[in-house]
């Protein structure tokens, strides 16, 4: 039997030359640069450690940024909400500010893993891991979030819709760069948002479909001026359905509109058949349900009465 277990990730040791703990961002960047692509950033570690054990990648050193001061704040500057790169899912879900001004993100953060995972796993790490099912990424896409990335060359700010490149791949190179903050505008009085997730279990469950929307309605609460609709994991990357968004723009805030949009969302998406997540047909049906329910909740939050 023992040869069977040899191949399991369970028995594999992770070997590293160094575990580095910088005290400033500048130090962290220097350490990464000294290793020239052979060291990788670690924040909460709940993805990195699993990936290292599964040999999804190999590194010679880890650079742990959890001791750098000033990276775990959740702040409001004007209408802009700013989350530091080390803010955890538990912190986001518990934040009064996020619950009041971006409830769709707070509720989504409660869907991640388990309490033990949420208290250490960071939202920034969730994005950099680049998984199509990342719970944090879907509402942040709907919120039109931007992320700041720092490297030896300075800082750049990237809209989240341009952030995801492919399965597990984003514009951040975690062997050379650091995602230092996430920012987005808080929801105004004519706006509403919602995230819904379908999974087999309430905790530690793989999502079958996640949908998040943010709607903006006119002053009379009759017309949908704008809607942001984000979906995962129904493609290699989490994405905004811009075709769908242009269809809904300017339409009356009625159940009829919602049914039409939900049908279209379902017809346009191309989820894979998956033994873990369900068949393509089933997930398409569920996209329909989730898009409709999300839009309904978001519109009601924005002050619309739907009929």
């Amino acid at each position, binding site marked *: 039997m023992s040869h069977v277990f040899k191949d399991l990730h369970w028995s594999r040791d992770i070997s*590293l030359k160094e575990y580095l703990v910088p005290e400033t961002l500048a130090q962290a960047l220097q350490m990464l640069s000294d290793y020239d692509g052979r060291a990788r950033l670690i924040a909460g570690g709940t993805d990195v450690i699993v990936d290292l*054990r599964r040999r999804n990648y190999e590194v010679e050193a*880890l650079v742990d940024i959890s001791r750098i001061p000033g990276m775990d704040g959740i702040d409001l500057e004007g209408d802009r909400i700013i989350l530091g790169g080390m803010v955890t899912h538990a912190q986001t879900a518990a934040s009064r500010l996020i619950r009041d001004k971006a409830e769709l993100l707070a509720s989504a953060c409660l869907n991640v893993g*388990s*309490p*033990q*995972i949420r208290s*250490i796993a960071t939202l920034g790490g969730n994005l950099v891991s680049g998984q199509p099912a990342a719970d944090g990424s879907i509402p942040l896409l709907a919120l039109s979030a931007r992320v700041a990335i720092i490297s030896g060359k300075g800082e750049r700010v990237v809209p989240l819709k341009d952030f995801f490149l492919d399965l597990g791949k984003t514009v951040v190179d975690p062997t050379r760069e650091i995602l230092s903050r996430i920012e987005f505008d808080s929801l105004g009085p004519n706006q509403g948002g919602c995230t819904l997730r379908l999974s087999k279990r309430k905790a*530690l469950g793989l999502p079958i479909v996640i949908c998040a929307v943010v709607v903006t309605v006119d002053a009379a609460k009759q017309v949908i001026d704008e809607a942001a609709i984000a979906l995962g994991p129904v493609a290699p990357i989490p994405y905004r359905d811009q075709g769908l968004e242009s269809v809904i723009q300017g339409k009356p805030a009625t159940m009829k509109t919602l049914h039409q949009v939900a049908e279209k969302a379902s017809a346009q998406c191309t989820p894979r058949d998956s033994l873990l997540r369900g068949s393509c047909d089933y997930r398409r049906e569920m996209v329909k349900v989730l898009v409709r329910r999300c839009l309904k909740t978001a519109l009601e939050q924005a002050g619309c009465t739907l009929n």
Partner: protein
Amino acid sequence: MSNIELSFTLNGKKVEAAVAPVKMLVDLLRETFNLTGTKVGCREGECGACTVLMDGEAYNSCLMPAHKVQGREVTTIEGLQQADGSLDPLQEAFMEAGAVQCGFCTPGMILNAKALLSKNPSPDEEEIRMALSGVLCRCTGYRKIVQAVKNAASESRS
């Protein structure tokens, strides 16, 4: 490979250890400190058998590089026992309610419950279930476990 010198508080005592880079906390606890109450289940953060408290909050020690405990306060299931040998009210409640079958998940269940009760002394059933949602039990079906946490909470209030 350069070892890391660590100092932290373990079950109320200051301790020191030299560990290899990226030694996981669960291995440090079991191998160096012989605290085998912390279990290794899945090593992927799915089962919660390795749960420990760090500064009162529950974490999976199988995913935690040991360096993260530098200067922190770690409590394992062994640390819940008082100096006079008496058990924590939660441990008593688990025995009373028969919330233990094979026992493998029990340390994780109790420590997650401990983290909950320290923040929220009167949780409702939903809050208890949420707090325990990161620990898998394959024997009892959770009912008695939830009951034990309820009993411990009302015990400590009376």
